[in-house]
């Protein structure tokens, strides 16, 4: 099993993050070092570090698992 970083649900593109959380770019930035590679889990709606693991993991590029 991979980490959040490799998961298809993990969104860490800075532009997408700033669009997802209005106000984030007002006094900070998704392009800042302080964010590291953290991102949003679009499945669980959590803001996560990239190194976590999870039973909901689905590798990038794989067909989605049935719900």
């Amino acid at each position, binding site marked *: 099993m991979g*980490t959040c*970083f490799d998961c298809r649900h993990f969104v860490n*593109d*800075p*532009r997408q993050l*700033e*669009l*997802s*959380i*209005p*106000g*984030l*770019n*007002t*006094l*900070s*930035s998704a*392009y*800042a*070092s*302080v*964010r*590291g*590679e*953290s*991102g*949003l889990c679009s*499945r*669980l*709606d*959590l*803001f*996560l*570090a*990239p*190194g*976590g*693991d*999870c*039973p*909901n993991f*689905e590798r990038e590029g794989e067909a989605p*698992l*049935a*719900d």
Partner: protein
Amino acid sequence: MSEHAAKPGADYCETKTCAETPPKAPMGWKELYLKEDWWAIYLGIGITIVALIAFLNGSTFVKALAINPGGLKWSSLGQLADHFSKNIGMYILQMISWLVIFGVSTRIMGIKSSEFIPSFIILYLLSIAMFAIGGWVNAPKYNLEPPLVALIIGLIIANVIPLPKWMDAGFRVEYYIKTGIVLLGATFPIALVVSAGPIALFQATLISVTTCVVIYMVATKVFGLDKRLGAVMGTGGAVCGVSGSMAIASAVGAKKDYLYTSVTLVVVWALVMILFIPFVAKSFGLNPGIAGAWVGTSEFADAAGFAAASAYGRMAGNEDAAIQGFTLMKVIGRDMWIGIWSFIFALIACFKWEKEECGTRPNAMEIWWRFPKFVIGFFVASFFMTAITAGYSSADFGKLVKPGLILPIVSLRTWAFIFCFLSIGLTTRFKELKSAGLKPFFAFTIGVIVNVMLGFILSVYVFGGHWSTLGAPLGK
């Protein structure tokens, strides 16, 4: 139903344990060209070196390029028009220079040039207008300080005119303030960092810990809110605003909603403080160094704090002292420790909260990954320029170095700050901010009140004698 079919959140928190493998390195060396902190260092140090080379070769090009209408003291529109008609070529050249260095770097970071360029041109033209307002001879009488005017006009534009979202590509608040901070380092005596840094660190740590604990305890114990929300709001209010919230949200695996709530509270209170602190400081007639230290203790974000400190410094007639006090307290006293806070909360989340919920095994490298790298640029620029100017006598410094090297760098720094202050307003769309809810609002607000009062007491009464001596420029 497969093991993957449970509802989001349910199985995750029941079954997930700390990862057995440490988190992988975020982006490795790519960070050097994908993060704005590094670009701020390259631009700040690069501009400083170019200015130094020009100065050493007797060229006045950088000095001419650093033009701004802020010091005109014009009393009629004719004077202002005359200034622009005489210098239109230099302003166009300056705009192109900013456009190239910011445009190329943002493109490499992944921001579309087709969005950045038109947005930045508008930002530049608005910035000229802000400088021009500040250069009016009667501006100080009406408190028309460029940082405050830029913020308010930006807010009005963003909330009255429906600016398209893509324009945010050019309104890079953090990138501009970080570049300005590195340029500030080039005029900041390193001796001041060494002598005042430990006191700033002590005061900032005392207040940060107190504020964080107050917000966390009120949120969780009084209002019964989730501890992750308490942690995200606590660090947002105590350490570094939205950046602090973001770092801790990922360290503890907070809900997106928690981060959004904290972002909203930080933005709203930071805007209030930009206006509140300078005018309260003025009513007390505070020394600008003391007021700068207070702003550094009680503002949430670098960009907002520089706006407040710069505005009050101008009101009090010593902008350097206010900015020095703020920088020591916020950049050195608080910003540098964001990674450590993040690591501590990750430890708490994993080893204490893990019993009930989930988390990711903490990694001490987090402290470096989340370190605000632009601070390195501030130190390097300060050390470098202090060493370069140490060889000049006081007389030569005042006659040659200050007008030929220091003031052009200060002017370029002021441009970067004005881009930032305008961008704060232009990116704040109140209707997009989340309704925080009364409990989070009151928990955060109680923390703000404690922070502001404790910050005032420490800055004015406990360490006031120390902060009131600030304001000496490089070379003295």
